[in-house]
């Protein structure tokens, strides 16, 4: 298993993901974007993905908004989608647990596409997250399964294709989709 995923690769992938989302929105009848940026990251800082957040600070093509709670991050992403803007919610596992009612009420019941990148902080390299000693890591995938949320795990740079793929899944299913960040970014 690789040591880490370079932040720059994740940012390039996010740009491609937003570009693809805008093409899909245009195909549905969305008029051309009135914004200079490609898309939005809604974040409650995740220790696991902190190098991505640091790099996003300098990134002009992606707008980052730090929210006070994950409930807000998810709901702002939903509002952006309503107005024709693509977004990614970047949080950690604890934030998923903190915002389950919003996942259910906004994204599942409201049929609003929300794509999450969720950092699995404290995930042990040598074992499956479901077998983790840490409850925060262990309960994540079972919780997503309970709610019927499609999810996949990023285990190295070779898995980056999962980001545009699951963003597409969230748009096409009109609901939540998750990529779990299984190792630290660098």
């Amino acid at each position: 298993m690789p040591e880490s995923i370079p932040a720059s690769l994740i940012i390039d992938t996010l740009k491609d993901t937003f570009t693809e989302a805008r093409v899909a929105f245009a195909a549905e009848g969305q008029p051309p974007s009135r914004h200079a940026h490609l898309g939005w990251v809604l974040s409650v800082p995740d220790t696991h993905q902190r190098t991505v957040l640091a790099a996003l600070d300098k990134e002009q093509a992606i707008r980052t908004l730090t929210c006070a709670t994950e409930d807000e991050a998810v709901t702002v992403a939903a509002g952006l989608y309503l107005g024709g803007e693509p977004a990614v919610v970047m949080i950690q596992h604890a934030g998923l647990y903190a915002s389950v009612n919003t996942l259910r009420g906004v994204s599942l019941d409201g049929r609003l596409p929300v794509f999450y990148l969720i950092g699995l902080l404290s995930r042990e390299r040598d074992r499956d997250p479901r077998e983790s000693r840490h409850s925060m890591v262990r309960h994540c995938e079972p919780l997503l399964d309970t709610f019927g949320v499609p999810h996949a795990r990023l285990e190295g740079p070779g898995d980056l294709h999962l980001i545009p793929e699951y963003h597409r899944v969230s748009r096409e299913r009109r609901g939540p989709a998750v990529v779990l960040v299984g190792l630290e970014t660098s």
Partner: protein
Amino acid sequence: MAIKPEDALRLIAEARGGAICVPTMTTSPAWRTLAPDDLSVTCVGFMGGASALGLGLALARPDRRVLVLDGDGSLLMQLGSLATIAGARPRNFVHFVFKNGVYHTSGSQEIPGGLTVDFAMMAKAAGYRGAWSIGELDDLRRRLPAILGAEGPVLVELITTLANETPMTARGGVPFPQQVEALRIKLRSV
């Protein structure tokens, strides 16, 4: 000194122009009849989320005003959104908080702190560009044009009586996912 919420909503509906409106809780049954063809989405099923949904809409559509018609208990549930909204500085964001002092929809239990909670002061302290408390209908009528034209984010705490209907007594209306889809499509062409 308190405003009937239906009277406040009628004034807002008349003055709203092309604004996107985000009602929730007891503002939603009255809004349904006052603004039936409006660019609205009523928040149900995620208490506290109206302000954040409005923020997302405001950031996506800076060319259009967004009016959030919030409940006092609801705002308390996501009080941090005041700071998030202030930080995002959407110029087109107008936040009305209907302060009735209670969780009317769930049976009129008093909210924490009751009527002493000052949402206008909280908004100012969070960094909103302006915030006012209004408890008289004439005062609202006089100030509304300036409020709706102000550079946001701004908040208006409306001190109100209890609404005639709640989402529990006046069920129905278009289900949330259909409203969402309809608004998304409407927003493409305006």
